[in-house]
Structures are given as C-alpha cells and as structure tokens.
C-alpha cells in the first residue's frame, strides 16, 4: 500500500484524490490548473469515451479533413499523481462515503469530485428519428461515422442552422455532396446574430453551395423501403412542416445540446436544465463541483469553451482554499463559420426589452455587418460578420458596461468603428519587440514566452514577467492576451493624477502667456521682485527646487529598483506630479519666469519642458483608457521618454548653475 504524504496545506481536505469526471477541454483545463497549484495532490480523471482526451472544438475540422486525426488529441500533462481512466464512465456516486464507482465496478474515494460531464446533442422528437443514416454530431465516434457516411451520401440534410449545424454542413460538402440546412429559427445562428447579420451570413453560406431553408421544421423523416437492406429502415427524405418533401439520404441532427445531468439526477444532486451550482460552482453537495456545459449557474447555461475554462480556474482555486467566486460570463463568441468571421458578445436580441437600442453599420460591398446594442448609453452587446479589429475592446467594454457617447455612435454609423480604427487591439497581433508594459519594459515576445511556458492567467503572466506589477495600466492588455474577460483596469488615484497634472499644465500655460513677470518700477511699493532678486531668497528657493527634483526621483527609484519598494507606485506617481506642481510655483519665486541667458536659459528651458512633459504625461495617463491601447501605449511611451530624456542633462546643468552662482 502506498504511504500517503503528509499534506500540510489542506484545509478541511482529506487525503483522498480529487476526481474529475469528463476529459473534455474543460476537465483537462481543470486538471492543468489544479496540478499547477497542488502538484502533490492525487488526481483521477475518468472519461466515458474510448479515446484519449481530444479537443471537441476541432471535430468539424476533422470531418472536413482540414486536419488529421492526430491533431485533435490534447496532450495530458504527465504527472506522477495522475491516473487517467478512459472508456470508463462513472456510473454511481456514494455521496455519504465520498466514493464513486466506475463502469468496471471499482470504487474510488474522492476528497472533491469535479463533474465536467459536458452535454449531449438534443434529438428532437420527430417520427423515424432513430432510423439508419440519421446522425448526431457530437463526439469522435460520431465524426468517424459521418466521415464514412460522407463518402456515399449524395444529399445530406442538416437539421439546425446554428454554429455547429453550419460547420457540419460545410464539412459534409467535402465530396461534392449536396447539403441542405433546415433551420427552425427565422435566420441562421439566431442565438448569436440579429436578422440582418443572419441574412448576410445566409448569403455567404449559400454562395458556398449550401442550401438554406429557414423558419421551417422537419416534421417527419421519410423511410426508404429498400428491399436490399431489410435489417434497418433507412432515410429517404424529410418532410417539412409546410408539406414540402426534401429527398435526401443522410440526416444530421444539430439542433442544440442539453447538459448531461443524468449522473447528478440519479444521485440526488439538484438539477434544473443543468446541474445547479452556486458562485463557487459547487453543486448542492459541496464536495461536488460541476463545470463547463453540464453546469447551470443561475439561469445561465454554457455552450462555449471559454466560460468552461473560467469555471476550471475558479474551481481549481476554490479547492485549494481560496475564496474564488464565479460571477457569470457574458457570452461571447468569435468564430469562423463556413469561412466567415462571426463575432457576437453580450445581449444581441433587440426584442429582449424596450430599453435596448441597436445601431447598425452595414457595408455589403466589403461584406461587413456590425451592430452594437446599448441600454442607457452603455454597451451591452455587439455582433459582427466579417473582421472587426475593435472586437476585444468591444468585448471588454461590454463586460465593464462602458458608457459610449453620441460621437462614438456617429463614428460607428459612418465608419463601423466605435473608437479609432487604425490599430489592432489584440496584443497578440503586436510585433514581438513591442513593449506592452512600459514600467518594466516587458515586450509582447516575453509575454508570449511566458504564456507558452504555462502562465495562462493574467496573474501568472504578471508574476512571471513582472509586467503590470507597477502601475497596472497594461493589465487589460494582458487579459486580452489570455482571453480572460473579467480583468478590470483598476489603476488607483487617476483622479488625483488628472487634477494635479491639469493644475501643473495650467500653471505652465499661464507662465507661457504671462512671460517674465515685471520688476517693481518704484521703491515706493512692496518689492515683490525681491523674491527673485534677493540673494538669500534665491538661495532658499533654489535649493528647495533642487530638493524637490531629487525627492521626485524617488518615484523612478520605486519604479525601477526592486529593492526600493516603499508604498505603491500609483501613490508615488501622484506625489511625483504634486512635487512637479510645487516646483513650478517655487520656480516662479526663484526666477520671476525670467529665462536668463546661456547656461541659465538652458537650465530654465529644460526644467520648464520637463515640467510640461511631466504634466502632459500625467494628464495623458489619467485619460489613457479613452485611447486605443496600442495608440495610447505608444503615445504614453513617447511622452514618458521625452520626459525622461529631458531630465538627462538636468543634473549637470543644475550643478554648474549652482557652481557658477558661487564661483562668480
């Protein structure tokens, strides 16, 4: 018997392994995340399919022979503490003893059970649905069957014009098979797209040779009475609800999916449409979690892989004792459907409520259709056919329910872009040498390296590369990198930064306008000009300026040196700008805004420019979120550099200024 290791980290955890049921992408992602967090914990993963774990998302590509079978398998991390049971579904759970029974009858004890059961295809109740040559398309087995059938099919009918239906239709076209899609909804992909987009998509799909019939129901499958094959009746055609008969030899049902809830239901775990979970993704039995497509959070079901990955991460952290919560995912998809880019995020059904407003940009000549949805001027949804370079920003803005203004809408209606349209938001498309984090100088290439080395969350990338550990403004960009959508930009003190910078800029503008202050014209008044004429005053103000300049360097120290980390960078930044503003005031007392000649002129000009660039940089940073990330980053980097570069000669100029004052 194996001797169990002492596990000193567990909190309320016994020594039994964590068991994962289901080796789909979500189950595997959980495995990956959890084993990184707790490499010493034993793990068992069960899959009912007789295959190694594979990537379900790629099945339609496999069916279309775009990829080879080897390419769909997902590598399972080789962990000492991991046992993989394939072709071995879990049949029973003994919740009172924390045991599960597999198909071979063996019992396995678990400390936590993670159900990643996925979903099964929905098969509508149509007469003759179970006859030969009627297929579903969900798993590798289905794929193999369809691939075989594809060779002899002349006309394939696909029931369902959703994402999977269209992909299947495309795949089945391969051997010059005629393909017809029957869609119950009013237009294609009616869950994700509005009518306009649906119609455009339909045109595109029809161009590729697929026939589309919308708003029709298959009411009956017609059986061929073929005497040669009497074993099992087979498909001859399909009858639609208007009586039309479509002759076909193959029918694929792609009418949606249903969460697999049987195992849960049989063992008294609360279910609704899916397995009900709380904000920690625990089922009604708190030792059992449900993630991915089988889970139901509040009223939400999940049909895409991205939320499932989030679930995996939340549960992995929760099991290790962190109080992670799941707050729901805004449904978002960015996919290629029949070679056409389709993007959909958030609320895209204009009929959902009266308060929703839809704006459309349609440019048929370039095949671009875009639409945004707002409630009270806040972005709640968007969809698009064709490329939309802004889509990451749109998605983040919808998550954050960003406000948009009339000029955004005007721009959108005119150009199809809500913001500026010149650059790509997605940092993955940036050149590898481009700096993403200005504070630490981390480039896109370094981030990719970290990402590929397994840092798959913003937090991990940040820890690994130190990117976004200083001012945090590039955090949303990192999230674009990892596809996490709930990372809000939480830079502190931007308000302060804005107002101090603004004050500084205004002060400098006043100096610019006023020019040198006049000297007193008479001795019969208060000699205010003594401030910048009297030697004692000048020494006081001069050395104060020097001290301010030195003190403000502490921010740079804080930013650049790991060993100097006193307080938060964001606070230092505000202090830095504040010191600049104070320096601008003292500079007035020191010089009366006289620039002087030669060395003094250079020093004064340099100092004023440093202050100005600093003020502008501060102002820009406080407003950076209004700019496109790449533009903003570039501009900010240039401003910061100019500010820094202008500082370079300052110590020398200042030294010789002070020296010359006493020397001569």
């Amino acid at each position, binding site marked *: 018997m194996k001797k169990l290791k002492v596990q000193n980290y567990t909190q309320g955890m016994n020594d039994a392994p964590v068991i994962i049921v289901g080796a789909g992408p979500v189950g595997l992602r959980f495995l990956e995340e959890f084993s990184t967090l707790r490499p010493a914990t034993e793990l068992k993963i069960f899959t009912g399919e007789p295959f190694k774990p594979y990537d379900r998302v790629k099945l339609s590509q496999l069916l279309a022979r775009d990829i080879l079978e080897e390419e769909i398998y997902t590598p399972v991390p080789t962990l000492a503490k991991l046992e993989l049971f394939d072709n071995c579904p879990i049949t029973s759970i003994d919740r009172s003893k924390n045991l599960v029974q597999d198909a071979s009858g063996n019992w396995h004890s678990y400390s936590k059970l993670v159900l990643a059961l996925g979903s099964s295809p929905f098969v509508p109740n149509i007469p003759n649905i179970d006859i030969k040559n009627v297929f579903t398309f969900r798993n590798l087995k289905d794929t193999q069957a369809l691939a075989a059938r594809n060779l002899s099919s002349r006309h394939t009918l696909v029931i369902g014009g959703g994402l999977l239906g269209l992909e299947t239709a495309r795949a089945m076209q391969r051997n010059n098979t005629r393909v017809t899609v029957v869609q119950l909804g009013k237009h294609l992909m009616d869950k994700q797209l509005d009518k306009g987009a649906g119609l455009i998509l339909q045109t595109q799909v029809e161009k590729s040779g697929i026939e589309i019939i919308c708003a029709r129901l298959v009411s009956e499958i017609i059986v061929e009475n073929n005497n040669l094959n009497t074993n099992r009746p087979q498909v001859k055609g399909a009858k639609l609800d208007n009586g039309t008969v479509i002759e076909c030899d193959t029918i694929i049902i792609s009418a949606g999916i249903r969460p697999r809830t049987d195992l849960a239901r049989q063992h008294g775990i609360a279910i609704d449409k899916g397995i009900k979970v709380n904000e920690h993704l625990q089922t009604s039995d708190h030792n059992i979690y449900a993630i991915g497509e089988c889970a139901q959070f509040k009223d939400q079901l999940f049909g895409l892989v991205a939320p499932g990955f989030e679930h995996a991460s939340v549960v992995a952290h929760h099991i290790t004792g962190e109080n992670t919560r799941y707050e729901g995912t805004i449904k978002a998809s960015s996919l290629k459907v029949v070679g056409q880019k389709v993007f959909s995020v958030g609320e895209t059904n204009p009929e959902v409520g009266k308060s929703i407003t839809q704006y459309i940009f349609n440019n048929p000549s370039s095949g671009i259709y875009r639409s945004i949805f707002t409630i009270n001027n806040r972005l709640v949804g968007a969809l698009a056919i064709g490329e939309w370079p802004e889509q990451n920003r749109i998605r983040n803005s919808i998550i954050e329910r960003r406000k948009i203004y009339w000029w955004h809408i005007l721009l959108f209606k005119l150009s199809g872009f809500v913001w500026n349209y010149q650059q790509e938001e997605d940092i993955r498309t940036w050149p590898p040498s481009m700096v993403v984090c200005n504070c630490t100088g981390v480039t896109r290439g370094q981030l990719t390296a970290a990402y590929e080395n397994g840092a798959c969350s913003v937090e991990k990338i940040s820890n690994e590369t130190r990117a976004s550990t200083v001012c945090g403004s590039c955090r949303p960009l990192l999230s674009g990198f990892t596809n996490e959508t709930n990372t809000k930009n939480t830079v502190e003190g931007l308000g302060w930064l804005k107002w101090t910078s603004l004050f500084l800029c205004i002060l400098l503008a006043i100096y610019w306008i006023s020019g040198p202050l006049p000297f007193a014209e008479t001795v019969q008044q208060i000699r205010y000009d003594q401030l910048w004429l009297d030697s004692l005053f000048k020494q006081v103000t001069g050395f104060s300026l020097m001290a301010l300049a030195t003190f403000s360097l502490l921010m740079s120290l804080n930013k650049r040196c790991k060993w100097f980390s006193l307080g938060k960078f964001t606070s230092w930044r505000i202090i830095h700008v504040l010191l600049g503003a104070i320096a601008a005031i003292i500079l007035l007392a020191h010089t009366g805004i006289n620039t002087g*000649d030669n060395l003094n002129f250079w020093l004064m000009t340099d100092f004023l420019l440093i202050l100005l660039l600093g003020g502008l940089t501060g102002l820009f940073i406080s407003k950076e979120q209004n700019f496109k990330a790449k533009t903003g980053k570039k501009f900010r980097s240039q401003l910061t550099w100019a500010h820094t570069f202008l500082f370079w000669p300052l110590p020398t100029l200042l030294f010789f200024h002070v020296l010359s004052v006493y*020397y*001569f």
Partner: protein
Amino acid sequence: MTRYWSWLGWLIITSTLGGFFTYTLFSSDKSVFLIGKTTDGHHQIELACENCHLSSFGGTELLQEACEGCHLEELKEVRDAHPKRKFTDPGNADRVAILDARFCVTCHREHREDITNNMGLTVPEDVCFLCHEDIGNERATHSGLGFNTCGNSGCHNFHDNRALFEDFLVENADQPWLKASPLVAPLTRAEHLILTATTSQSQIPDFFQPALNQEIVENWSSSIHANADVDCATCHSSVDESWTPEAILKNCDGCHERQSSGFQLGKHGMRLASGLDAMTPEKARIPMHENASAKALTCSSCHGSHDTNIQFAAVEACMGCHNSDHVNAYPKSRHGEITARVFAGEAALESAVSCATCHMPRESALVGGQSITHVQHNQNDNLKPNDKMLRTVCMNCHSLAFSIDALADETLISTNFNGRPTLHVESIDMAIDRRAILQDRDTTYH
C-alpha cells in the same frame, strides 16, 4: 537592454556636458556662464571675468574691490556726494538698512539688462525716495516733483554733483549765454612743442638704412619726436618687430604714462587694459562706419606712428569710425565751423571746439606746485551723465544756465548743438527762489 542603453546615454550626455562646462570654466571664453547681457559700460570686457570676479568664490567684498580698482580714483576726484563712509559710519547704520550703499552692486548689478536703467542703475529710478522722502517739505520748490525725475539732466547726480549744488547754481546765475572771448583751456606743453617743431637733423641708425622709407623719415624728422631727440632706436630695436596694438600701447606708455592710463580707463583702451585684444568698431554698440569695423584701437590709431598731427587726432580720427547723428552733424555745426577756421589758421588754436575739446578735454592739474595742462585720454571721463561736462568743458565758453538747458535737450545734442535749446531746466531758478525764501526768513527773525 533599454535600461542599459539609457544609462549609457545619460552617462554620455552628462560627461559630455560636464566636460564642456568644466573646460569652459577654465578657458578664456566663459561666455556660456554669462547670465545676461552686460551693460554698455562693461560689455567690452565681459569675457575678462577675472577683472571683476577677482577670485573664484569671491563674494561681494571682492566684487567691491574690483569696482573700486577702476572707479574709486574718479569718485574721489569728483568729490562723491554719497561716499562709502557716509554709510560705513556706525552712526549711520540705519541708512545701510535702507540702502546698502557700501557696495556698488546694490544699485549697479551687472549682467542684468532686464532691470538696468539709465547710468547702469539696477534699482527703480525713484530710489532717492528711500532716504529723501521728505524733500518736498524741506524744499518747497521740490514739492510735487516725482522721485523718478531726481536724476534728470541738469538736476542731480548721485556721485558727481559739482556743477549742480545750490551755491554753485546761484553763483553762476545771470550770465550771458556766450562769453565775450570764448577760449577753452590753454594748450598743453606737447601741443606747444608740436606747433614750434622744426625739421630735425638727427641721424638714422645704420641698421635701419636698408628698410628706410622716405616718407617715414620726413614725417618723423618734422615731428616733435625728432625735435625731442626721440630717434628710431628709442622705439625700434630691429626692423622685423611686429607692432601689435598691445606692443604699441606698451611702447608709448614708456613716456606718455598719464595719457596711456587715461586711454586704458576709457572705452578705447579698456580691452587692452584687461588683457583682451584691442577694441574695434565692430565690437561697439553705438553706430560706427562699416568700413572701419576691423580697425584695432591703440595709440597710433589716432596719433600716427611717425607724424604727430594733432588736428587729425582731434576730429578726423574720431569721424573715421564714429557714425552717429551727433558726429555726422559736427562739420556743419557752429562748433565745427569754428574749428575749421582754426585749422585753416584763421583763429587761435584755443578757440577750436573739436571732438576732443569736449570729449578729451585739456585739464589742468597741480604737479609739484606747477599747473600742468594735459589731455584727458579717457573719453568716458565726462561723458555720462553729461552734466559732468558742465564745469570742465561747457562753461569755458557758455553760461551755466545755457549749458544745463543745452545738455538736457536731446534733439539739440543729435544735431550737434546746431541752434538754441528749446527746453528749460529750472535748477538755477529753484536755487534762487530758495535763497530768496531763506533771506526773507532771516530778515523776519532778525
């Protein structure tokens, strides 16, 4: 990498800039450290820093020493109305608190064009108010006058008040505008000698024979130098000497010490005195003839090397470079016409009013009990403020009242006094009025 390069970049900039400033600090051209435009008085010698900044990290006391080095003698001569001792006297400590006049730089800061007024004053023009606030009560004649008018031409001069004090004004009231026989100061001994010089028979040294130039020999042999046995060898020791402006000054200085030092105090010679290269018209801030711009100023610029033509030195030499309205109007002015007659031999030499008559006047001084007349070679001596000319120059021929009015009339100055003054300064009237009041008061009390 970026960090490494930026540190390197910073180091390069710092060391380049630092090296440049350090080098400059020890080089002869320190103009990089000039904090502003130097005043008209000192701009010629602004790069001879050590002339005023006697030592590095010297401070105000050393600056004061430098000011006094050039200007103290002059101040003593003119009986400075506000001498240092008025302020250093312990009994007058309160005055120092108001205006620290122990130091020239209190009122005359250099390199501060932005606050520089007339006469290099860098305090507001009404500075007199600080001590003389009550003047209106003391003198009814002054009540209501603005404090910024104290220094007006013909009124007061902070340092040289010799021609403007009350007794002098009263004494010189009521005179005709032009004297019956207007003659300037008597000729100097040199001038007498020049006028009486004959052709000398002195020998030319042998080693000069090959290089001899007949014109030079003629010039020299009819000059005062030949008459005074100052032969070639006095100045020349070989033929291939190079006569730089510095060398010429040094050579003349051997005999003409007084003239040479006057020259070096004025604007024509102050650069040479400071060890800089000689002044040239192109370095001047006042209008000069372009074709003269490169002429280096030394003794021989006006006096010639071998001839001793005093008429040339008195007018032509000046007009060869200077190009202001005042200068250009001279030949046709009254003064110019008189001088032309004198040069033509039609009038006595003492009645000539040349450029030099006013700007390099003959002055008499007692030397060993004897009154010696010499020419003031510091052209700046009586130039600013122009009321310094009243006693030494103008009043030789004109009344005080006329002179005061004329010097206050800037249009008249630019036409070189071609006409009569159009304005009137009330200095004498005020002095007389006050005398009358005081006498009245005396009469009443006695």
